[in-house]
């Protein structure tokens, strides 16, 4: 094992973490402000990816597709909030889980009905094709570096939004006391719609960026959704800072586990078995990390002030 390989794997972990952050940020905002568990967040990720692939195929430009993914996911989020989610705020979490699970099925089958079951083609824009040399003599895909950069910009933008703007102030107020800000005359219904659309847009952005790297297909959102939930549980539900750190922790743990565990096991057992056992153990690793963190800090690393 060389330093170059370790560096490359660390970047891979960061990239996965950043991608998870985009998902988890929206999820944790929605939970923090509205107290809503939104299982359909993965569907919004899928909407972003399909919008980007379709528009990119029409126009030939990935960048227009990327804008389309933000618009489509935000619009889908706003519509879902107005039509369905709005009725769920006063219900308990089980009702929310059931209703948003139904939304997953509706989104999946709706997408299949519109686009068919075969994966769509979405390629990386020419500007970000290929790989660049890293110190240590290895190469790294430009596109993955771009995802890391985009994630960092979004994280900084969210920080500014929440700490420096009126909307951010209302979001923070909503997190600490929902009834009170309503009583103070803030239009809470519009605030909820805006926050939901913002979270949806972030998920859509993640879906579009990842879609170019993986495959754009029905059901692509659900595996990511599970990881995003792990992230917000580790980070502390409702905390953006927690989501960022949780996402990076999960991303790096998962990548390093997949890379190192088989190597460590190979010192003790035959390579074929080490690969098999190591692979299986690596897929459990993030859940073990989550369990350990919850045992020490039951409300996550950065519990939100209320609740």
């Amino acid at each position, binding site marked *: 094992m060389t330093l170059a390989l370790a560096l490359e794997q660390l970047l891979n972990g960061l990239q996965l973490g950043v991608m998870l952050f985009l998902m988890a940020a929206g999820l944790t905002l929605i939970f923090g402000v509205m107290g809503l568990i939104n299982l359909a967040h993965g569907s919004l990720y899928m909407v972003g990816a399909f919008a980007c692939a379709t528009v990119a195929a029409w126009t030939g430009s990935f960048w227009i597709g990327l804008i389309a993914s933000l618009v489509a996911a935000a619009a889908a989020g706003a519509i879902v909030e107005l039509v369905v989610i709005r009725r769920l705020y006063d219900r308990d979490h089980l009702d929310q889980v059931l209703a948003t699970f139904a939304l997953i099925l509706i989104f999946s089958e709706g997408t299949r009905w519109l686009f068919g079951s075969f994966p769509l083609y979405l390629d*990386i824009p020419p500007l970000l094709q290929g*790989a660049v040399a890293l110190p240590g003599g290895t190469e790294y895909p430009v596109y993955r570096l771009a995802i890391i950069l985009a994630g960092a910009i979004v994280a900084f933008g969210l920080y500014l939004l929440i700490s420096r703007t009126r909307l951010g102030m209302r979001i923070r107020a909503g997190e600490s006391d929902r009834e009170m800000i309503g009583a103070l005359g803030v239009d809470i219904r519009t605030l909820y719609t805006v926050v939901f659309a913002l979270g949806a847009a972030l998920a859509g952005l993640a879906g579009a960026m990842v879609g170019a790297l993986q495959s754009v297909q029905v059901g692509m959102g659900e595996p990511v959704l599970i990881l995003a939930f792990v992230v917000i549980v580790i980070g502390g539900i409702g905390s953006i800072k927690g989501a960022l750190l949780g996402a990076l922790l999960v991303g790096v743990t998962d990548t390093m586990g997949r890379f190192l565990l088989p190597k460590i096991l190979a010192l003790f057992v035959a390579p074929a078995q080490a*690969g098999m056992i190591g692979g299986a153990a690596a897929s459990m690793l993030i859940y073990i990390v989550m369990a350990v963190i919850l045992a020490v800090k039951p409300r996550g690393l950065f519990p939100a002030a209320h609740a």
Partner: protein
Amino acid sequence: MKKMLAAATLALSMSTAGTAFAEPLKIGMITTLSGGGAGLGIDTRDGFMLAIKNSGNKDITVVTEDDAQKPELAVQIADKMIQSNQVDILTGIVWSNLLMAVAPSAVAQGKFYVSTNAAPAALAGANCNKLYFNAAYQNDNLHEAMGEYANKGYKKMFILAPNYPAGKDSLTGFKRYYKGQLAAEVYTQVGQTDYAAEIAQMRASGADGIFTFLPGGMGIAFMKQFAQSGVKIPVMGPGFSFSQDVLPAIGDAAVGAKASGQWAPDFDNAASKKFLADFQKEYNRLPSIYAVQAYDAAQLILSAASKASVKDAKAFGAELKKADIQSPRGKFKFNTNQHPIQDIYLTEVVKQNGVITNKTVEKIFADHGDAYAKDCKI
């Protein structure tokens, strides 16, 4: 007069409706029609239904249900199909872990299972069954062929597959024929979509060739990421990794990849040409190998049903085993363990008139059976 007219109508209807069966036949198709693996299941269903439609037979009913690639769901559907739909034959499962959950219990209940794809080693050897047929291959076959191919010119291979029964069969099959050195043997999660960690290991491994078995969306993700990584090691795999269901989504990144297969769209025989034309006419796309396998499974069932009643398991099984069909693959017959003996070819992904597809390069194995048949005592 009336009687004569009725007889004439009956004779006429029989001559237009193709061969009538001794008894109506009910087939239960369980396949993956939703989620990431849906492309494979849809090609399976469409290939199967094409053969049924071409036969023009009205005595045959096919009940189709989606297993969503979930073993527990497949088991429930199989129970329902056997108990309430009263099917005679089950078919259609794409994934080996699902097949292992369904097929052994179906044959124990006296139903035929004709597999259109999944062919785990566990059902090919000592645990083979008179009622279990595989129309596709044995899981190891295409991987064995790539192992044999890799012997020519590759000294150090990096091999990778998902961690499930067919993934293990894959790497076992590859290693059975590959004589060179292994740089690494890596198992990934089923349904994994990010291969950055594995690609980094490939880069550092010093391998001169990469063998991956990644069907469906997994292969799309891997090939796109690999193309961007700057790693310049040739990639090869079994036909599933570069099958027609995934090639359009991978795009140019797949061009040049070598794979093994029992069929490719450029096969020069009458059955293949007819199949290709019919499939494109019916569904307006190129078929994958899953479609060919399912098409043959349906042909096998149709051929057996025209000669024996499915209620007479012994006679029906014997007719199935004769494999009296015109397969698009050319040669096709059953081994003692009721898995195919067939030729396996090397194919290459090419771009022809803007369409990315597979082209036959050479024959790797002639009349290839599998390593487990000798343990099968039926």
